[in-house]
């Protein structure tokens, strides 16, 4: 039971998150241009039967904009986490080639970890001119160090494993050892690492967009919705900030739970 339970929980989390993701992906087609449709006779309408989560200052349905924002955040988070994992894996592999390269990679990891994330994110996103691409690159470039540190340690340990040394002694090339022995062992680490990066990536994307360094204000991103909501909060229009924020929180929590269950199961 002790071994089956983490796997069961991981499977449950995976199922719930997969449903959430499928819903988000499907919503992109089902919504069409509803997130942008304005109804000037229903501006800043509170949640009701006609307007499920209320409307914004231009009469746009908040449920449609929240769904579209979450879908956008999901893609940005996915791409950033994937890119970040690839950077971490590549640098960890490079670090195992020699002691000098290892010292260099370690220095790079320590340097990046010592700089506050958000400041570096803003600088990179600003330097790249903002927009979706800039946000993805900025998040990817700043989020790899923790995972790279784990993968580097794991690779160093694996390289000393008798079966890896025997494989080399049996005439297998470095490339064979890498893809035959080392990388398959790292896949679970990469998977969990990418899933742990994902919520961070989404939150930082939203934060960047909220601060005006991220996605374009014309896109229905969660950061844009929250930034817009700030202007109306003092007027009592609570739904503008609460629902997009709640959606973001649920998605981040879902992926965080999934990654922690997977980490235990794998």
């Amino acid at each position: 039971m002790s071994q089956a339970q983490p796997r069961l929980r991981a499977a449950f989390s995976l199922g719930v998150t997969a449903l959430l993701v499928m819903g988000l992906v499907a919503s992109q087609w089902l919504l069409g241009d509803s997130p942008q449709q304005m109804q000037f006779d229903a501006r800043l309408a509170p949640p009701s039967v006609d307007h499920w989560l209320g409307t914004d200052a231009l009469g746009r349905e908040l449920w449609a904009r929240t769904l579209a924002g979450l879908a956008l955040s999901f893609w940005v988070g996915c791409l950033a986490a994937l890119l970040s994992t690839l950077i971490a894996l590549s640098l960890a592999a490079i670090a195992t080639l020699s002691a000098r390269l290892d010292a260099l990679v370690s220095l790079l990891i320590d340097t990046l970890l010592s700089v506050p994330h958000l400041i570096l994110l803003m600088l990179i996103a600003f330097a790249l001119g903002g927009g979706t691409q800039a946000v993805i690159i900025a998040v990817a470039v700043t989020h790899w160090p923790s995972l790279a540190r784990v993968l580097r340690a794991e690779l160093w340990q694996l390289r000393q494993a008798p079966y890896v040394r025997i494989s080399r002694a049996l005439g297998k090339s470095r490339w064979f050892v890498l893809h035959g022995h080392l990388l398959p062992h790292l896949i679970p680490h990469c998977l969990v690492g990418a899933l742990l990066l994902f919520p961070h990536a989404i939150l930082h994307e939203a934060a960047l967009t909220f601060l005006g360094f991220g996605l374009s204000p014309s896109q229905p991103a969660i950061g844009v919705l929250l930034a817009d909501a700030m202007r109306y909060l003092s007027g009592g229009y609570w739904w503008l900030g609460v629902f997009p924020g709640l959606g973001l929180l649920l998605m981040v929590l879902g992926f965080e739970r999934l990654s922690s269950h997977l980490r235990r199961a794998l």
Partner: protein
Amino acid sequence: MLKARQLSFHFAPKVPLLQDISLTLCAGQWLGLSGDSGAGKSTLGQLLAGYLAPQAGDVTLDGEALPKSGVQPVQWLPQSPELAVNPRWRVGKILREAWTPSDTQCQAFGVQAKWLSRFPQSLSGGELQRVCVLRALAPGVRFLVADEISTMLDPITQVELWQALKREAEQRQLGVLVISHDTALLERLCPQRLHLSEGQLKPW
């Protein structure tokens, strides 16, 4: 001929493990190596197989340095077979990593066909050790360093394993360095025996 000349090795500076060790292992020769725990027997075995580099001295094969690529002519067989195999690979893939033994060779080492589709975790230590020994006998291998390979096996499995290895070694004129604490085993298997103590080799 595998030759070690004045090998010295230490893991920590100022704490020498092996000092000026020289030994020769000829084709077809069975040489026994005993010594207390921590004396450096396994380290010497790994130096001979090229797994470790000595701080002084060298290991040569027919007067030349050990090759840096390809199947190494000196193969090391560790004590724990479960650490010597990739836990994510099936036994068939493990066995075929270097070469494909014939059914007769598998039978000679007691490696059963039904094991090949299993993962190593489902095999016993003795069964897995047979697989490891057979894997190490790839074409081109001329010397074996058998590092306590039968310590964790029951007496019957020990006899079967050593008999199979003895037959194969005689056929191929393999030189074998048998490392063990078991002096009775070394006396039965090896006409020449050495004892490692305080970093030095002594005959016994």
